[in-house]
């Protein structure tokens, strides 16, 4: 593995602007729904109003006869999708709930909001109107949507990560001098990016299809469609260059996407589906409702004796969804006795999916709230309590961390927010009517390097093109990749173009789990390094070379030039090397992946969040008035987009802490606030100035750049920091998110 020092790690990466920023703000960036294909038809989904039962009757004649309607597909007439029922198909593993679900294949209703018909017309408005004419009657069965009521039905999901975990004797906590037992709930959260989900499908031949979709991995969608329709993967072309926020909802190919592909095939016309905002709440996943209990014991000196972390989350009756809710508890603190259990309860609900900071964000809320509660019981400063239980090495896997600078992060964040103003005694700070409090929390997420390919092409004019199939779900992947290539080859940022989001480009993983900068970035790094080696050899060997007799390591690549170390006047523009060698272009492509170091070290990114809140004890209103987030995510390859990532994560954290909750009426099994007026994502006025601080020290092992991921840690833990600050302000501990004025006023007023 290359030595990370190859990157000029004594210097910070330059703060370059988002390479596609201009395109995005001028409308030049094309999102999936904006591609225009002549003859496009529009699909509107009719959904189930009940949560469990079956379709008794469905009247589609009127809709079929409505102006402009081309077809109404239901379970009776959707063409069979050849590859869906194969054993290796979508429902390969039998789900804990025992049900199977494929859209429009039978009469079964497994959740409210389940698509039961597709109406396709020549305009969107006509399709919408015709959809209102489809009339359905149901045979209802009693539904179960309330996790609180059905917690006892929790099952341990399959898979090593979900198994019960135990080290030492976890029950020891019960006899510790100081004991805490507390339960926390996280409501259903919905991703709600601005861009609606959907797909645009155009069959260009009987066995060839072009797809524009809202997917976090074009090759993932390609595989799913190829498998469903028994096509050669190369005949499925998927394009997703830009995305108006993914946050996890595009991490799988949803049944309605496959159904649209089938409809387009049958109709021999391009079909576009853009789901409605209320359908965004039921059809493309959500963060699952989760209840957790943390039991914890510590000795009088503030050393943890034991932690027991139990989590129970919802899933669908037809699919097991799991996430790493209890993962962090296993390794974040030095504690000899730890156990975790994770259960899922199959409910009559659409299946959840990962949402930014999946699992850990939920777990960190509970664990980091509990740490604060314990610190209060011990009358210790919460940072001091964490320091007394600092894990220098990974206590779960008994091996070193590849890098961990959490202590430094605590310090930097504390200094920035003015932690010294905080009183350990709650309710001690006031500004007029408002109570002021400070809280902090840590976060962590797995860092890793997977496998990816990249291709780079150098032109005679000195410009460089980088290619990778990866999708940018918003963080600024293009910018990071350009920054890495610039670092290796010294080509000015403005002369580097990153081509992405298309299945014709070199293989890349799905974007998610904070792995792309590490994985695709490494591929770009390795490919650029290979190009550099070739260029150096050519430059030395060519006739009239100013570097005659020099060695490759004597050459410096800077400002689009190759220069001789020691005698910088000897130089050549990179493009001139191609001209001298009669090469129109020079390209390199390779596949790159991590090595044994990925198993030798525990690799995690860490974050520390600090929040200052103002609580109005009269009205119950809580506002975050100041926020500081510190990331230990290795080397920061693109400082500006990284800071934006943090700001976005903290904003999501404010939503999780104070405003976001999708509410079910269990009598009907339906959501009652499935729109953006009633489901409250934070608005600008909820978000204070956010200071983002980066440790910016390269991880020596993870990859050649030394960069760990940071998309998830930006959010993980923030909600706990807010809840802890609310406690510090009021002396009241609110363990059920979100912390809305009604909950505060019941306790404080």
């Amino acid at each position, binding site marked *: 593995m290359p030595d990370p020092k190859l990157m000029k790690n004594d210097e910070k990466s330059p703060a370059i602007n988002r390479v596609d920023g201009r395109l995005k703000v001028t409308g030049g960036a094309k999102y999936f729904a904006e591609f225009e294909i002549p003859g496009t038809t529009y699909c509107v989904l009719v959904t189930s*109003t009940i949560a469990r039962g079956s379709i008794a009757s469905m009247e589609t004649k009127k809709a079929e006869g409505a102006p402009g309607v081309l077809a109404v597909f239901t379970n009776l007439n959707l063409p069979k999708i050849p590859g869906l029922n194969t054993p290796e198909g979508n429902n390969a593993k039998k789900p804990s709930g025992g049900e199977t679900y494929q859209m429009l294949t039978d009469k079964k209703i497994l959740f*409210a909001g389940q698509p039961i018909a597709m109406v396709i017309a020549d305009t969107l*408005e006509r399709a*919408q*109107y015709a959809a*209102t004419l489809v009339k359905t009657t149901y045979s209802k069965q009693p539904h179960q949507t309330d996790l609180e009521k059905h917690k006892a039905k929790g099952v341990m999901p399959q898979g090593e990560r979900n198994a019960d975990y135990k080290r030492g004797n976890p029950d020891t906590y019960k006899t510790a001098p100081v004991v805490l037992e507390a339960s926390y709930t996280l409501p259903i959260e919905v991703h709600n990016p601005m861009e609606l989900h959907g797909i645009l499908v155009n069959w260009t031949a009987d066995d060839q299809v072009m797809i524009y979709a809202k997917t976090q991995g074009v090759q993932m969608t390609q595989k799913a469609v190829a498998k469903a329709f028994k096509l050669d993967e190369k005949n499925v072309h998927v394009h997703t260059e830009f995305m108006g926020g993914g946050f996890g909802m595009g991490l799988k190919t949803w049944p309605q996407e496959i159904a649209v592909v089938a409809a387009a095939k049958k109709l021999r016309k391009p079909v576009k589906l853009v789901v409605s905002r*209320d359908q965004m709440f039921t059809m493309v996943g959500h963060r699952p409702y989760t209840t957790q209990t943390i039991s914890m014991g510590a000795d009088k000196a503030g050393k943890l004796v034991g932690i027991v972390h139990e989590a129970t989350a919802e899933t669908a009756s037809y699919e097991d969804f799991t996430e790493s809710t209890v993962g962090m508890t296993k390794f974040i603190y030095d504690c000899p006795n730890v156990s975790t259990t994770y259960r899922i309860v199959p409910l009559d609900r659409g299946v959840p999916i990962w949402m930014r900071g999946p699992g850990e964000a939920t777990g960190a809320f509970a664990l980091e709230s509990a740490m604060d509660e314990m610190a209060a019981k011990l009358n210790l400063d919460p940072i001091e309590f964490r320091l007394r239980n600092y894990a220098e090495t990974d206590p779960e896997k008994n091996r070193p961390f590849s890098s961990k600078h959490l202590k430094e992060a605590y310090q930097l964040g504390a200094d920035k927010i003015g932690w010294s103003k905080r009183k350990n005694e709650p309710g001690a700070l006031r500004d007029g*009517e408002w109570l002021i409090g400070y809280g902090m929390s840590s976060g962590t997420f797995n860092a890793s390097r997977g496998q990816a390919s990249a291709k780079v092409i150098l032109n005679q004019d000195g410009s460089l093109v980088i290619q990778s199939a990866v999708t940018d779900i918003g963080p600024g992947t293009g910018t990071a990749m350009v920054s890495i290539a610039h670092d290796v080859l010294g080509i000015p940022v403005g002369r580097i173009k990153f081509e992405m989001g298309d299945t014709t480009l070199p293989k890349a993983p799905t974007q998610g789990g904070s792995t792309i900068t590490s994985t695709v970035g490494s591929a770009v790094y390795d490919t650029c390094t290979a190009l550099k080696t070739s260029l150096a050899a050519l430059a030395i060997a060519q006739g009239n070379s100013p570097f005659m007799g020099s060695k490759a390591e004597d050459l410096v690549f800077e400002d689009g030039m190759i220069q001789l170390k020691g005698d910088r006047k000897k130089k050549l523009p990179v493009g001139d090397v191609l001209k001298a060698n009669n090469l129109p272009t020079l390209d390199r492509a390779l596949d790159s992946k991590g090595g044994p170091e990925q198993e030798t070290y525990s690799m995690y990114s860490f974050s520390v969040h600090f929040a200052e809140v103002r609580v109005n004890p*009269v*009205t*119950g*209103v809580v*506002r975050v008035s100041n926020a500081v987030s510190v990331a230990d995510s290795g080397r920061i390859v693109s400082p500006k987009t990284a800071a934006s990532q943090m700001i976005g994560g903290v904003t999501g954290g404010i939503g999780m802490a*104070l*405003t976001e909750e999708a*509410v079910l*009426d269990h*009598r*009907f099994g*339906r959501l*009652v*606030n*499935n*729109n953006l*007026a*009633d489901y*409250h994502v*934070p*608005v*600008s*006025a*909820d978000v204070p100035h956010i200071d983002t601080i980066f440790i910016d020290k390269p991880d020596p092992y993870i990859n050649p750049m030394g960069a760990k991921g940071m998309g998830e840690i930006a959010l993980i833990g923030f909600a706990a920091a807010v809840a802890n600050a609310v406690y510090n302000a009021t002396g009241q501990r609110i363990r059920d998110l979100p912390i*809305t*004025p*009604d909950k505060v*006023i*019941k306790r404080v*007023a």
Partner: protein
Amino acid sequence: MNQFQYVRVTTPKAAVAAVTKENNSLFLAGGTNLIDLMKRNVMSPEKLVDINKLPLNTIEKTATGLRIGALAKNTAVAEHELVRKSFPLLSMALNAGASPQLRNMATVGGNMMQRTRCGYFYDTAMPCNKREPGSGCGAIGGYNRMHAIFGTESSDRSSKCIAVHPSDMCIALVALDATVLVSGSKGERRIPFIDFHRLPGDAPEKDNTLQKGELIMAVDLPNNPFADHSHYLKVRDRASYAFALVSVGAALNLKGNTIQEARLAMGGVSHKPWRLTEVEQFLRGKPATEATFRQAADVAMKGAKGYGENDFKLTMAPNTLIDALKTAAKNA
């Protein structure tokens, strides 16, 4: 959304005629509420009569006060110099509502006529007496965190609807003794603002007392002595762009520290903008102290009733009232 006809009219007379004669036709102003309801199939008019070309958007001084045209945009009213100077409560209330984009589109008439935001009203798969009389009230026994605590009873003492009127603007207008000028097929009439909206009673499908085809022309505000001591306090789930959990419009006329006269109304608590006349009487002649305001809050809360999830309003409403009065007493 259903298919509908669209016509544009240029005179109030034509507007009234168009809506009076057709069964299922509605005026279209800013469209920020009506179009949303049509998209969700909650309202399905067969004809929209666009009134945006009517000359009803002026804001002008009159002999007795101020006249605001029904088509004046919420932003224009909130920012109008006369409004800010002499009716600051109205300006504050408007600016506490919705978002700048919505306020730029929303009209005064449309704001008064906006429907409740009750989630069951918006979901055609759920029961709702307001949307579908006789189907039941989903909010009772359900998600009623946003719902009413005052004036919910019907003639048999049960509740048929516990929705709230969502407007902020209307809280200021009802407090400031506004009058609504409407025009119908039988001519014009004036409705005191306090009688414009109604309680659900036995007919929750009716939000107000406007007759079929009647067009709101303008709102008249009488001059008032409250400009120095007005405050609109809105408690909501996020810092902006959220409907009120509870809001209070408070206006005081102080002589020294004595309350000469008070105007008070609450939002987020009832099917209509909730004017607190009894509390106003109680405050008359009393010192503007916290103790007075606490007593006033007790008077205000008489008859309040929670429905479970909205029980917190029984604490939040009086607290907000006291806080708003304190701030209004301080303002100058």
